[in-house]
């Protein structure tokens, strides 16, 4: 009796687990082109100057090749940022206009691997560094493209530095090659703080973690100890050492306070990217661009370069 029962059980479990996948094509008539803005004001040492990427949204193409990609970028827009009553224009500049060392530095700052870049990349930037970046200052962005006008605002928040960073053993099973990072911050008790961080291993560009933002609801005003995972993209998969730093590397950690709208944007965007599955519902990404998609964000950052000691 036992053997047939187990056989039936096995067959049924296999059938149950044998879910089927089929590709579908989203309705192309739903496509509606919108402007997409990705712009940052960053107050920190070694920050890129204020810059803005202006693209268009695209339909759900099965293949996004270099031609499709190149056509995304919007050229010839009139872009200004107004601060404290003064207006500052951003100039359009493309990567191929930059000398090589600067080009690599810019791509690294944008988290883009220069070796795999297939297109000329254009942005609008405050090339002269004329926009004053002050804590608490409000900035108002205006983009004029033909008949269309896009607007957004942001402010630069106070900085909250990491007081100390150290590395410890991995929890559970021993691993001599990797270490876990611990940090302590003293959260600001007077404000609702929002945080975002990036990390880079040896020879890597700084990238945000797939879940890169948090607020201080649970530790408002407290001295707070936490583990800091090595950033990775959601596509890179998980392994036993995901989130840990390789011993012997000099790693970079960029720790930023961000404005609330930028927190909402990244929070909804990161959840939207991972919200897949039978019980999930969609999340509409919440940007702060009037008449467009994307984010005009401000951040106040500190960058730490630390050696991960051998065990």
């Amino acid at each position, binding site marked *: 009796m036992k053997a047939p029962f187990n056989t*039936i*059980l096995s*067959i*049924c*479990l296999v*059938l*149950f687990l044998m*879910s*089927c*996948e*089929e*590709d*579908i094509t*989203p309705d192309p008539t*739903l*496509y509606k082109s*919108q402007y*997409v803005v*990705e712009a940052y004001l960053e107050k920190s040492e070694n920050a890129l100057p204020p810059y803005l990427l202006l693209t268009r*949204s*695209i*339909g*759900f193409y*099965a*293949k*996004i*090749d270099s031609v499709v*990609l190149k056509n*995304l970028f919007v050229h010839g827009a009139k872009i200004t940022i107004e601060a404290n009553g003064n207006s500052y224009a951003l100039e359009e500049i493309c990567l191929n206009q930059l000398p090589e060392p600067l080009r690599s530095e810019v791509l690294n700052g944008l*988290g*883009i691997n220069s070796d*795999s*870049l*297939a297109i000329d990349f254009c942005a609008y930037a405050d090339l002269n560094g004329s926009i004053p970046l002050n804590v608490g200052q409000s900035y108002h962005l205006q983009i004029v493209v033909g008949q269309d006008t896009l607007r957004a605002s942001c402010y630069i928040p106070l900085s909250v530095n990491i007081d100390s960073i150290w590395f410890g053993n991995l*929890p*559970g099973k021993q691993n001599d090659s990797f270490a876990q990072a611990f940090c302590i911050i003293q959260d600001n008790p007077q404000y609702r703080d929002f945080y975002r961080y990036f990390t880079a291993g040896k020879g890597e560009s700084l990238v*945000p973690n797939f879940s890169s933002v948090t*607020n201080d*609801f*649970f530790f408002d005003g*407290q001295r*707070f*100890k936490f*583990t800091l995972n090595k950033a990775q*993209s959601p*596509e890179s998969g998980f392994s036993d050492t995901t989130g840990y730093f390789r011993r012997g590397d000099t790693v970079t950690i960029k720790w930023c306070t961000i404005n609330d709208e930028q927190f909402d944007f990244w*929070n*909804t*965007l990161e*959840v939207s990217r991972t919200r*897949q*599955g*039978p*019980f999930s*519902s*969609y*999340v*509409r*990404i*919440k940007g702060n661009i009037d008449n467009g998609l994307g984010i005009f964000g401000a951040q106040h950052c500190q960058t730490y370069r630390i050696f991960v000691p051998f065990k």
Partner: protein
Amino acid sequence: MMNKTAGAILLFILFQGALSSQQKFTVHGYITESGSGETIIGANIHDVNNQSSGVSSNNYGFWSMTLTEGEYELVFTYTGYTEEHRKIVLNKNLELNVKLKSGLELEEVTISSEEIKKNVRSTEMGTQVMNTDIVKRMPALLGEVDILKTLQLLPGVSSATEGTSGLYIRGGGPDQNLVLLDEAIVYNTGHLLGFFSVFNADAIKNTKLIKGSAPAEYGGRISSVIDVQMKEGNNEYFEAEGGIGLISSRLTLQGPIAQNKSSFIISARRTYALDLAQPFIRNTNFAGTNYYFYDINTKINYRLTNRDRIYLSGYFGRDVFKFSNNDRAFGVKLPYGNATGTLRWNHEIRNDLFSNVSLIVNNYDFRLDAGQEDFSVVVKSGVKDISCKADADYYPSNKHHIKFGMRYTYHRLTPNLVSATNGEVDFVSKLETKFGHESELYFLDDWILRPGISLNTGLRFSNFIQVGPYTGRLNNYQSGEFVKSYLVPEPRIYFNVSTGPNSSVKGGMSVNSQYIHLVSNSGSTLPTDIWVPSTERVKPQLGFQYSLGYFRNLLSNEFEISVETYYKDLYNQLDYRESYVEDFSSEVEREFVSGRGRAYGLELFIARKKGRLNGWVGYTLSKTERWFSEIEKGRVFPATYDRPHDLVLVGSYRLSPSWQCSANFIYATGRAYTPIQSLFIIDGRPNVEYGPRNSARLEPYHRLDISMVYDNSSLKRSRFHHSWAFSIYNVYNRKNPFFTYTDFSSQIYSGNASARAVKVSIFTIIPSVTYNFSWSSRPKILNNESPI
């Protein structure tokens, strides 16, 4: 005001009784099942010479008729049971307890025409009573007999996602169904993310579904009522029954404690799929990982006197998920479930006045414990209610059945309270547990105005008082301090006008309010969803329903046909604001937006209740819409569970005394979903911009299920019987999409990126087999001919 109303009702009853006592006498009693002593709910009693007026046994099996002095022949009928006749000489008040023989005990079942005509004669609309024996014969997913999934086969009822037991009834959300188990509200009706209902069919006597036109005795939800009654326990002999299935095993024990005086039932069920896998899991990095659910139903009753009965019933169910990753010293434990308890006292105040007083407690709690070395987090949420209620059935004449009563509930609703520690500092969320007092008072009269015209009029007053602690818009309220009160009058009126001996037109309207809400941010309800009360910020939901229907029986009552239409106006509907992301740091009620809804439709139902081949066809044409000023600027969009077309065919055929086959076929419009409108690049990666909410549909859903049941019960008189149930879910392997997802390559600036959208089907063809057995201390022959 309330005291005056109650006093007037009491005076009316006493005065009416005094006036009538000289001309009329009352015959009353209980109707029970022969062989088990189980009370029968909703059995019909009428005078053989006056078929147009009669009464039904109430929720406790009690009935009463007040007639003028004389000789009568009373007929007792109930679907699936033989008709019983009793001749009486009524020259004094009389107690008459009747036992009906069920189809399970008989060689042949004849169904009374009068019983079948009940659907034509009563004022009930949109109401179906589902006998558990019928449910057990239906094809079942993975062999798990499921009452709620069987209800999904009725017109006007659907599930949000395939395989789940959540009910969406006439355009109402799952939280808008009043689900009662022995009068206790069940807040979470699903095990295993809703794939299996919490109701163990072995412990359930019957299930009544009211799709909208609920009489005044029901309240607290704006969509429907699912009233589940547990068995009371065989009070004549001992029985044991159980089953072994692919997913779970069950065992039920019942019997008399004192013969015909007291009995008990205890029923338990537990899953074991991952228990069987433990020997393999134990040797891996994931040792300690497991999932199971179990539930226990129990009930005892005691007859104190001929006029007093006490019932104590309880339910306890848990889902337990444990995950361990020993390499990472990481562990999660996630237990959740319901517990309910009901203490009832039935008392016959007079021969024509029956009362029930209940004390009810229920508790739904969810808990998550997770930890890794020094770090740990605990999340807790739930609902705890303590209720007391008193109901009375009054039968002043055979033209009136008056019901009145009250209920009081103290609610304690815990949001997702988080406490965490990093080994040095403890963190506790500052969210507030909410408290409320809910009170209800109702009165209704089911009145036969004259032969062929009946009226069910009722009025219900409901009141909800929120008390502190609470952080309001302007004030902070202390514990127990009054915050906000809502009072809603809820009139209900239904009529039945006979249009012939076998046909009638019924109609009505009702107003319903709801003070406890659950808003889900997922495609289906999940145990992590939390219930919230009406507060200063959250107004009670209101529902206005209008319905009209034509009911007719054909071919000597062999076929029952009904066409019902309904229109629902819904106010203060709740949803999450656009771009809401679950966040333990915010009061969930501040993330709600309030809006409107409407649902309307037409339901066609044709049933054959006699013969070897029986079953039904149900078709629903409907529309369900919502709109919120803060979502897409008030655009009207279809609800996720909007199903314009829904067709169900259910059939059962008795091949031989021991073999029975059943099948059901379902076709429904595909589920509404929010489509991708475009992609945009941020941070070097593609992101999705969604189009208008629920503006696209998955492809139509359809499937065929079949089952064969072999049962040796009718072959010999024996103490031991067994049966095999073979079932195939989705026979022709239709790949119905369960969900969709998108997949992107991340290196978009390489100029070599791609995007794909994928639909996933989970429930392909699934065969199953279940072995059932029963033992009784008294040998018996069972017959499984009881029709649907």
